[in-house]
């Protein structure tokens, strides 16, 4: 699923303020980690959205937790999100940032679902094939979903390449149901 417009706007602002490629790599990793922490940590969310906590205390919390450990540009960006009350969009912003970075690098993230673990040689062939289909350097994010029964499903944004047995059975069911009585 593609990120929303607000998240993309903030992600673009962050990307525009990154001075060099090494910093970009660091920021991408750090942002993903902070977003994951924000999603997982209820305490962090509760503190950040507690009305009794002042803005200054929130900023101090971020400084205490992340200060010196992350790129200054990212620290400044987190401050901005707090100030603009956009911290709740952090996960979406991280996703939008990844998409923008991938676009800049000519990369495309593709989620691949298989019923059993994908063999390495098949993953390589699938990546090369997807590179050709999508027209970008595809980064496969593989995961196992036994409910697809067999085959594979590749998802890139709005594009879905579905070669699962589950979908074939669903199509067969639809054909049988659509047949005249």
């Amino acid at each position, binding site marked *: 699923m593609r990120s929303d417009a607000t998240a993309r706007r903030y992600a673009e602002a962050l990307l525009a303020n990154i001075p060099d490629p090494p910093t970009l790599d660091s920021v991408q990793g750090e942002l993903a980690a902070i977003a994951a922490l924000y999603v997982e940590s209820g305490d962090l969310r509760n503190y950040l959205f507690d009305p009794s906590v002042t803005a200054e205390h929130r900023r101090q919390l971020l400084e205490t937790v992340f200060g010196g450990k992350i790129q200054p540009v990212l620290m400044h960006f987190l401050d901005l999100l707090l100030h603009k009350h956009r911290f709740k969009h952090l996960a979406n912003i991280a996703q939008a940032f990844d998409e923008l970075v991938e676009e800049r690098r000519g990369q495309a993230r593709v989620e691949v679902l298989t019923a*059993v673990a994908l063999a390495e040689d098949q993953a390589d*062939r699938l990546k090369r094939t997807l590179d*050709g289909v999508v027209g970008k350097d595809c980064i496969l994010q593989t995961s196992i979903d036994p409910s697809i*029964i067999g085959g594979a499903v590749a998802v890139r944004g709005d594009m879905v390449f579905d*070669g699962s047995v589950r979908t074939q059975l669903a199509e*067969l*069911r639809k054909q049988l149901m659509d047949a005249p009585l």
Partner: protein
Amino acid sequence: MEVLTQGLQRGDIIALLLTNIVAFLIFFVVLRKYAWGPLLAMLDARRDKIRSDFDAAEKELKDAEALRASFDAKIAEIKSMERERMQEAVKRGESIAGELEANARDKAGQFLERAEGELEREVRTARLQLREKTVDMAIAAAEKIIQEELDDQKHRKLVEDFITRLGESRA
């Protein structure tokens, strides 16, 4: 008379006769003056009253007959009007009955049509449900068999087929 005449002379008889006649005449004049007139007047009055009563009775009879004729005419008119009204009521009743019958036929027709439609829909729904259940059972059975049949090699083959089709779609 003969006894009387035996003792009386002819002159006595005449005198007697005259006396009687005079007496009678006096009686007659007195009677006429004091009794006859009122009697006749009474008789006349009685006759006039009887005639008048008779006339009145006749008039009443005539009036009664006229009234009766008028009453008969009125009765006849009323009967005629009643007959007309009855006929009109009968016609109206027949018309209403006709309308009711037509409505009843229409409603019955509509009901029948609706019932047929509903029956058809229910049969169709039942067929669809039956087919859905049959198809679901068949698909569930197929899924189970496929899952049981799929080993690593077949999984690999399915992914391989997917990659091939994906490559072909680009071409």
